[in-house]
């Protein structure tokens, strides 16, 4: 019956190239699941409330970063949501992440950067992997134990097992084999691995050319068990000490190609050559843009430089790690330290490619994933993108996520991917690719249901064996501008739908001021009908069942709503409606009735309509302004919400109704304790203060009167049990205390008719023997979506347990 929607949001940052065994790839994988499940499918027919869909949303976010991967890593955010119509099986989606590899920006720079050449992946990585994966078979060295063997003395045919790798620093004269040292990263050989002589020699070459070492040598020491212990003896490259640090963004700067140094150059030529190099480099620094690195990190690096005398390769490596860590922590996933320049001067220049966006491309995909022409107009998507995703900005993963969320909120696409990829034509640039799969424009759906109503003794019973149901059709994204028509027809008895048929037809027209205009106004128009039981005609305590009065409304509504923020908006429009009041037998009634002690009915109650005929027609203007700056702090709502609603009668309709009906609601969610924000952290205790004033000047029919009592007015009382009046004041306070991952609360509420019950025609408050005011207090706990609360009705002093759906405030 109810469809289930499932959405999967995943973003993954995967290393550009397949994991290379040469270098350790430390992976940070984080993932978060938010599962939200709402609504039970059972419905209560008498309430006539809008359908509750059983919706299920699953958000999955996972990110994996590979530190030290080559520049231009690629990641994919993807979002799949199965199209709602017809999908009844709970839906499903899967995210995949993958991406093209990025070419190395890292080398080819100045000769200062030689040592970083080791970062580029060696070509034989695959081959090596295959070999190491071959198994434990290895050959014994066949030499006496405990002798030092030169590398070239090893046999080219044997597969040696390396049992141990030891580093020997010649300058310090110390030996260490700890794997924590940054040097260890440089060597791809692993103790316990099996390698051939060629591999070990290649490793030596790589080490020698990486720039970290002035001199490096590999020696093998034979072990009695036939394995080799490898000794890497090295002299670390050092440069003169520096006292200042500069970080520059060299993205999009063309790499300077230096002419090869001719070995036959004279000293003079060499000097000229170095001078031109230096000049070139200075120009490069001048042309580079300032980078985003904050002063705090800058200072940290300066400290690192100050503590160390000479600038060593290991120090540069540390600086690189620190700088890169900051970028990656802040979401600049494409940022990469590519080079250190100006070594052997007082200043260390760190060259960073931050990942500047050079292009933003939006593509549509068909069901098979082929690129196709989309129906949606591009400005509709562009206006949802944060400006940080536009060309000229640095790519940030958070901006990508924001774009993903915003586009998802359009509800036009079944799959959204935001995917940065390196720009081949513009080195260091990033192209942000947005791939979208559109949902079907037209859909229709029929759903059926069997209603369950509370029967005798409150036991649920099947209302009837007749099925109820809904027929819905939708035409979305008309003209590619996100305009939509949605219609639905609901009946609780599909076999005999004329009994109670409720329909709704909505037309939504967003971007009234134009798609490119930042002003966000939406025009909506709808035809509707509804049937509700009037809480005005409800008995007070001790009054027997009051015959209910049903309020049927049929009408037309048109409004324009302007969004200022995600939650704050201003809506204004026109409503035209016909109101018919009916009694239990569905015949039109003009006055409320009350049972007399004699058993009869007194039929001279308050008039149900303004005209007195049981049918009213009227047109009025409606405005609503909502200011809502609430936000979630670890799952608890904190902030303020103010709502002012106004219905202004225009004197059009039965008895020329002219009125001003206004309501002001003020709710404050006060955080009582500062807490650290983050996933899994406990929410703060919150004090909720709520005030609601409603009043009306002019013609006020009973169906528009304000009622007191009920789960959204004064808890602990039934709907309308306290009274119905011309103006009301409700005050409430609630203290929410977090317990585990939910909260318990205690509340106090008061509702008052301000003595205005008599100003309502027929005084329904008094006619049905209601008090006109009431207080309540109680405690409750939130269990998922259900609130369980014990509320004490202060008028009678008795308490009761209630179960409610949704929030009070």
């Amino acid at each position, binding site marked *: 019956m109810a469809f289930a929607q499932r959405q999967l949001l995943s973003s993954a940052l995967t290393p550009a190239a397949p994991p290379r065994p040469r270098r350790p790839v430390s992976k940070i994988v984080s993932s978060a699941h938010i599962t939200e499940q709402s609504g039970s499918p059972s419905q209560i027919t008498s309430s006539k409330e809008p359908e509750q869909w059983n919706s299920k949303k699953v958000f999955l976010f996972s990110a994996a970063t590979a530190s030290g991967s080559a520049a231009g890593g690629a990641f994919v955010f993807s979002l799949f949501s199965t199209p709602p119509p017809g999908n009844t099986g709970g839906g499903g989606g899967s995210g995949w992440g993958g991406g093209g590899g990025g070419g190395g920006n890292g080398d080819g720079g100045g000769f200062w950067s030689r040592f970083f050449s080791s970062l580029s992946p060696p070509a034989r990585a695959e081959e090596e992997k295959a070999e190491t994966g071959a198994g434990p078979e290895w050959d014994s060295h066949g030499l006496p134990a405990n002798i030092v063997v030169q590398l070239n003395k090893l046999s080219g045919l044997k597969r040696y097992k390396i049992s141990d790798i030891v580093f020997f620093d010649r300058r310090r004269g110390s030996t260490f084999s700890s794997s924590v040292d940054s040097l260890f990263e440089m060597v791809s050989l692993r103790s316990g691995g099996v390698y051939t002589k060629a591999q070990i020699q290649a490793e030596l070459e790589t080490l020698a050319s990486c720039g970290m070492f002035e001199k490096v040598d590999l020696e093998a020491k034979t072990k009695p068990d036939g394995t080799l212990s490898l000794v890497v003896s090295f002299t670390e490259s050092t440069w003169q000490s520096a006292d200042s640090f500069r970080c520059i963004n060299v993205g999009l700067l063309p790499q300077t190609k230096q002419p090869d140094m001719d070995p036959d150059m004279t000293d003079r030529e060499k000097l000229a050559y170095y001078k031109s190099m230096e000049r070139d480099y200075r120009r490069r620094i001048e042309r580079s843009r*300032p980078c*985003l*690195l*904050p*002063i705090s990190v*800058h200072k940290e690096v300066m400290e690192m430089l100050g503590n160390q005398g000479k600038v060593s390769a290991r120090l540069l490596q540390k600086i690189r790690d620190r700088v890169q860590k900051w970028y990656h922590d*802040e*979401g*600049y996933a494409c940022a990469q330290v590519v080079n250190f320049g100006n070594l052997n001067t007082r200043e260390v220049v760190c060259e960073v490619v931050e990942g500047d966006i050079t292009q933003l491309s939006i593509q549509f995909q068909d069901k098979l994933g082929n690129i196709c022409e989309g129906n949606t107009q591009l400005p509709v998507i562009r206006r949802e993108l*944060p*400006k*940080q995703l536009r060309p000229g*900005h*640095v790519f*940030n993963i*958070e*901006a990508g996520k924001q774009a993903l969320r915003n586009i998802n909120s359009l509800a036009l696409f079944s799959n959204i991917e935001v995917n940065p990829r390196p720009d081949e034509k513009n080195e260091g640039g990033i192209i942000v690719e947005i791939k979208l799969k559109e949902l079907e424009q037209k859909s229709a759906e029929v759903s059926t249901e069997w209603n369950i109503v509370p029967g005798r003794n409150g036991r649920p019973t099947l209302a009837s064996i007749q099925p109820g149901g809904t027929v819905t059709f939708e035409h979305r994204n008309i003209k590619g501008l996100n305009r939509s028509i949605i219609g639905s027809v609901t009946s609780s008895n599909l076999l005999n739908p004329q009994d109670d048929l409720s329909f709704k037809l909505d037309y939504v027209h967003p971007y009234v001021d134009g798609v490119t205009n930042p002003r966000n106004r939406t025009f909506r128009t709808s035809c509707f009908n509804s049937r509700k039981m009037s809480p005005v005609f409800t008995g007070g305590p001790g009054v027997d069942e009051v015959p209910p009065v049903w309020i049927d409304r049929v009408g037309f509504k048109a409004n324009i709503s302007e969004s*200022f*923020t995600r939650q*704050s908006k*201003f809506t204004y429009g026109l409503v035209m409606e016909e109101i018919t009041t009916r009694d239990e037998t569905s015949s039109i009634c003009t006055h409320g009735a009350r049972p007399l*002690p004699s058993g009869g009915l*007194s039929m*001279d109650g308050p008039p149900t309509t*303004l005209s007195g005929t049981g049918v009213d027609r009227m047109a009025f203007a409606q*405005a609503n*302004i909502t*200011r809502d*700056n609430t936000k979630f702090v670890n799952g608890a709502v904190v902030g303020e919400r*103010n709502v*002012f609603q*106004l219905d*202004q009668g225009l004197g059009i309709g039965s008895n020329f109704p*002219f*009125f*001003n009906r*206004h309501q*002001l609601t003020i709710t404050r969610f006060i955080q009582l304790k500062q807490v650290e924000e983050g996933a899994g952290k406990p929410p703060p205790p919150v004090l909720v203060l709520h005030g609601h004033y409603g009043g009306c*000047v*002019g*013609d*006020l029919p009973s169906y528009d009167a304000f009622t007191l009592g009920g789960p959204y007015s004064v808890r602990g009382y039934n709907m309308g049990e306290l009274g119905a009046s*011309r103006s009301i004041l409700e005050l409430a306070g609630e203290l929410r205390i977090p317990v585990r991952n939910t909260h318990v609360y205690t509340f106090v509420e008061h509702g008052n008719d301000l003595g205005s019950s*008599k*100003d*309502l*025609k027929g005084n329904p408050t*008094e*006619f049905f*023997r209601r008090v006109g005011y009431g207080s309540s207090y109680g405690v409750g706990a939130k269990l998922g979506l259900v609130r369980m609360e014990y509320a004490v009705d202060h008028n009678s002093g008795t308490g009761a347990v209630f179960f409610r759906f949704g929030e009070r405030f």
Partner: protein
Amino acid sequence: MAFVMAREWLGIQQFPPATQTRLIELLGKLKQENVSTLTILVMGKGGMGKSSTVNSILGERVASVSAFQSEGLRPIMCSRTRAGFTLNIIDTPGIVEGGYVNEQAIGIIKRFLLNKTIDVLLYVDRLDAYRMDTLDRQVVKAITDTFGKTIWRRSLVVLTHAQLSPPDGLNYDDFVARRSEALLTYVRQGGRLSKVEFQKNSIPVVLVENSGRCKTNDSGEKILPNGIAWIPNLVETIINVVTSGGKSITVDQKLIEGPNPNNRGKLFIPLILAFQFLFVVKTIQRSIQEDVRKENKSLWELRDVGVADRKI
């Protein structure tokens, strides 16, 4: 509304001669004041002796009285003329039912009283009821809501069953005084009269004993335990109230329906609307703008647009 032909007041002859003389004297006094009709409305809770009082005043059995059943639901008007003077007494059914004021009964009374003028209201209660509760206040309130506050300037409180021996050896006059005071307090509260207003136009309390076993004095007049002949006393007090000021209340359509709350303040709606727009909507709009300005932006949103200045 059926027009009841005023009959000659024959019941007056039932009274002892002393009472007759006194009554005619009093009516003559009224006539001097140029008053030729007097309409008395009798109201109160059920079973207080309203109908009996009416019967006693007229000296006729006009309203059926039964000890255990409530009288009919309809009000009765009895008109009697004597020497060109017309006396109208309207007896009403009790307006309490099931512990609440019965609006239906009030509705019937109101419709019955349409186009009539009420000169005096007799609010009837029993002297021998010791306890007062909110119901009394509600009854008074219902009367006030129906006829307006001014009715209390033309009203008197009648305490029936006056022939009793006070409990606990209390002095009879003390008992009457205390009972009257208690009842008047409720009348004052229910009628929403201010203390000053109340003191200026004090509502007189009259004692009545309708029982056939009522003691009589030498001239055969029914007397109270304190020796006052109560029928002439009652009529005299009524005439005093009528002559002492206040306005008779004419019951018309408007009074029955009460002021239309839907029309109140209608003219001010444009003003209210302007106020709402200028002070409520604009204020909220301003605070929304404030929210937008103060919104906590993520660091990445600030950094790239030149706001951060490398501080973050």
